[in-house]
């Protein structure tokens, strides 16, 4: 069985039974499940037939919010806010007494999410781990204005990695506000691996990273 969360940039895959993919995409194995992260550009040109899927594909079988809600069960408190921050959108869901309580989905704004950060790192020839938390943050209502601030900052002599860290701090603040300022966030998605982002978010609330496979896990139980 193949379960696919097709992201804009990367696709997360969990396989069970004898299904498997190229070892270079292998992340981990747990119980009878194997976990892979594969560039979505490869997925699009392959003949993968997932049993269930969600994300940015025309024939996805499951709604991403539903997958998020199902995928985090068992790993969160009875009262919890789970934020999934992806390449081009952000979504959160809140449980109260283990029941769905509230949600929102910033459905299509790519300006201030993972794809923008990836582009910045490539543009300035930096690696994610080069970024360190910076207490200063750019106020970014829009990624385009955020990019402008980075460029202004660098032109004034600031190092690119420091400016991008301020930008990421701004994203973290916006994400916290978007999720209605909870005391604690369970974080899902690629930003779990971004220490600069997690540290920035921790300025506002406690953070529990759940990793990149939450939505994919949410596809399995049906």
């Amino acid at each position: 069985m193949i379960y696919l969360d097709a992201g804009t940039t990367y696709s997360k895959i969990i396989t069970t039974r004898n299904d498997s993919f190229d070892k270079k995409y292998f992340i981990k194995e747990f119980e009878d499940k194997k976990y892979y992260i594969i560039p979505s550009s490869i997925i699009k040109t392959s003949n993968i037939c997932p049993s269930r899927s969600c994300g940015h594909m025309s024939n996805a079988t499951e709604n991403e919010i539903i997958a998020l809600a199902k995928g985090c069960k068992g790993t969160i408190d009875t009262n919890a806010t789970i934020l999934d921050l992806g390449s081009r959108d952000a979504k959160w869901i809140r449980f109260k007494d283990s029941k769905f309580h509230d949600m929102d989905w910033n459905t299509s704004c790519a300006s201030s999410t993972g794809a923008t950060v990836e582009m910045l790192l490539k543009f300035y020839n930096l690696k994610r781990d080069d970024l360190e938390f910076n207490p200063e943050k750019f106020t970014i209502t829009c990624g385009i204005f955020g990019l402008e601030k980075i460029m202004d900052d660098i032109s004034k002599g600031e190092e690119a990695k420091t400016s991008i860290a301020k930008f990421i701090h701004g994203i973290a603040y916006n994400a916290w506000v978007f999720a209605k300022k909870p005391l604690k966030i369970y974080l899902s998605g690629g930003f779990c691996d971004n220490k600069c982002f997690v540290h920035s978010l921790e300025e506002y609330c406690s953070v529990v990273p759940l990793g990149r496979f939450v939505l994919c896990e949410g596809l399995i139980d049906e």
Partner: protein
Amino acid sequence: MNEQLIGFWGYPDPSLINKIKNQYPNCRWVDLDVDLGAPDKEILPKAYCKIIKNIINNAFALSPVKIAAPIGKDKCDSGWFAARLLSEFGFDCETSIYEQTLPKRPIKICTSNLPLIDKFNTIMNNIIDGIPDINYPQIKPQFGFWGVPPNDYEILKLFPAATHIYGWTRCVEAGTPADLELEMYVDASIPTVFYAQAFCSKTQLAKYLADKYNGLYIDVDDYINNSIKAKIEAFLRLR
């Protein structure tokens, strides 16, 4: 000879409707609020309520001989301004303010077992000739939809028939389009989607009520996209 049209928007004072019916007995009435695919005259700013844009663009596309133009609290300030603009462009606008809250007609359609889209059509397509006095079978609500008739009726297809209508559309069925108390009424026990057109002042009410009743606030500019559909679908499935 081309068919002559009477344009209207919102819920004109019934006395004005009757007066114009007597003046133009053979004219067909057309609701200018509705998205009829008229070309954009670019008179209004790009970022503006799509319903008001429809009014302006439909007027130019259809050239009604007369327009019944609500401008009071039963519509909105934008209706007031639109009436003025259309008058400046030479349209024969007759304004109305219909703000009474009594008498109220009983609510039968908003709470009926009709599909949600049919509920809207039944209410909105009978403003001029009166809502038929039929005892529609009632249904216990599973969900609520609060708001004005959306520009894009596709959104209504996402809801089951067991969805009750609240907000301004319910006020229209009651015959009291400016009844703020009724407009703000919802069943607190029912998961409700609070819908408003983007750039409409009713977004203020929709957001407030969604927060108050733990509903889902949605504003849409013109047409719904897959993401909005997915968000509503998630809300309906998880609640």
